[in-house]
């Protein structure tokens, strides 16, 4: 459950172990793989092992927080096994409205452009491109496309839009706009999780998350290169 929503390995292991001990079993061993979780519990001289598959459900910190709070409540003795199950099943992933997310991401990209030294007109261009790209990303994600396809398409949309700025000479720094508008596609969370997993000794999950981040980046740059070829604007190198 935690893994599906993008928590790091050390957190998954420690929450599972503490939850098990709080519910009264003698010991809990957890083996974490990239897309499955093996949990063995030892209670009253019986070993119970389950393997749970985890699918990637997108990053949702709200879920991570709620699951952890429920586990803490068990540890404090406020909840028993049945109560915990009830509480976990009652959690529904909270999502922010899509238009709000898209607008905020557009604004974020405009801020990145400004930080990189673009003028206001280019920031406006970046805002449009970022918003449009985020909407494209949500559209593809809602139809359950592979994330690689989603990132490819979103990068193509963003670069095509910002590329018009270079063609029609909008603003004095359209190239910064082209570079900033795809920053919403940087897989920052997998990158950081990957390194911190590896620092804490979970080389396996760290490597697979890192590889996923690089692949998403490769898909994005393929989208950028395609858009630059189609419109014949070369803004990056």
């Amino acid at each position, binding site marked *: 459950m935690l893994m599906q929503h*993008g*928590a*790091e390995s*050390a*957190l998954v292991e*420690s929450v599972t172990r*503490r939850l098990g001990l709080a519910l009264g079993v003698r010991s809990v061993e957890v083996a974490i793989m990239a897309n499955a979780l093996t949990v063995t519990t030892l209670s009253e001289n019986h070993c119970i092992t389950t393997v749970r598959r985890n699918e990637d459900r997108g*990053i*949702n*910190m*709200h*879920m*991570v*927080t709620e699951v*952890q*709070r429920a586990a*803490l409540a068990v540890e404090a003795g406020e909840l028993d096994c049945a109560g915990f199950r009830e509480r976990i099943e009652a959690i529904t*992933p*909270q*999502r*922010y409205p899509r238009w*709000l*997310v898209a607008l*905020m*991401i557009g*604004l*974020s*990209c405009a*801020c*990145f452009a*400004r*930080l*990189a030294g673009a003028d206001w007109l280019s920031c406006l261009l970046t805002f449009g491109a970022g918003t449009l790209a985020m909407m494209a990303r949500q559209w593809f994600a809602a139809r359950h496309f592979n994330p690689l396809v989603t990132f490819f398409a979103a990068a193509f949309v963003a670069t095509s839009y910002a590329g018009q700025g270079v063609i029609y000479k909008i603003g004095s720094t359209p190239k910064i706009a082209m*570079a*900033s508008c*795809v*920053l919403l596609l*940087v897989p*920052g*969370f997998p*990158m*950081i*999780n*990957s*390194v*911190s997993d590896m*620092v*804490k000794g979970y080389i396996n999950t760290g490597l697979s998350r890192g590889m996923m981040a690089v692949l998403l*980046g*490769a898909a*994005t*740059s*393929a989208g*950028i*290169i395609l858009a630059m070829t189609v419109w014949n604007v070369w803004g*990056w*190198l």
Partner: protein
Amino acid sequence: MNTVFQLLQNMLFAAVPAVGFGLVFNVPRDALIYCAAGGAIGRGLRFLLVTSGMPIELATFLAASVVSFLGVYIAQRMRAHPKVFTVAAMIPMIPGVPFFTALIAVGEIQRHGLTPDLFATAITSGLRATFIVAALAVGLALPGLLFYRRKPVV
């Protein structure tokens, strides 16, 4: 005066992306304000350190660890894992442009053949991106590595 203005501008423009990406990561509503604060503090601190002549990797590392220590303090009051909001606060410091520049340069090498310029771009941007991300992640993990070695943060 100019530096102060630039610092404020940096902090303001870093707080917005931190919140924006907080929305993408579905950070709980009451933690969004900490994303903004963390983003502003991290980016502002890094800006100060870089302008005073420190290499960017080291500055990133220090800024990330300061945000992480603040995050631990807030997390204990909120009863939530600090990563919930500190990672969103790191987003304004992620080296997105070098990351994509490296990958695009690799694509260009494939299309046009190897030139020293393209090769140099690919290697330097790739290394820069890798080192800054490593600095961010290790900086974030620092409280766990130094003080919470045998006990959980929350």
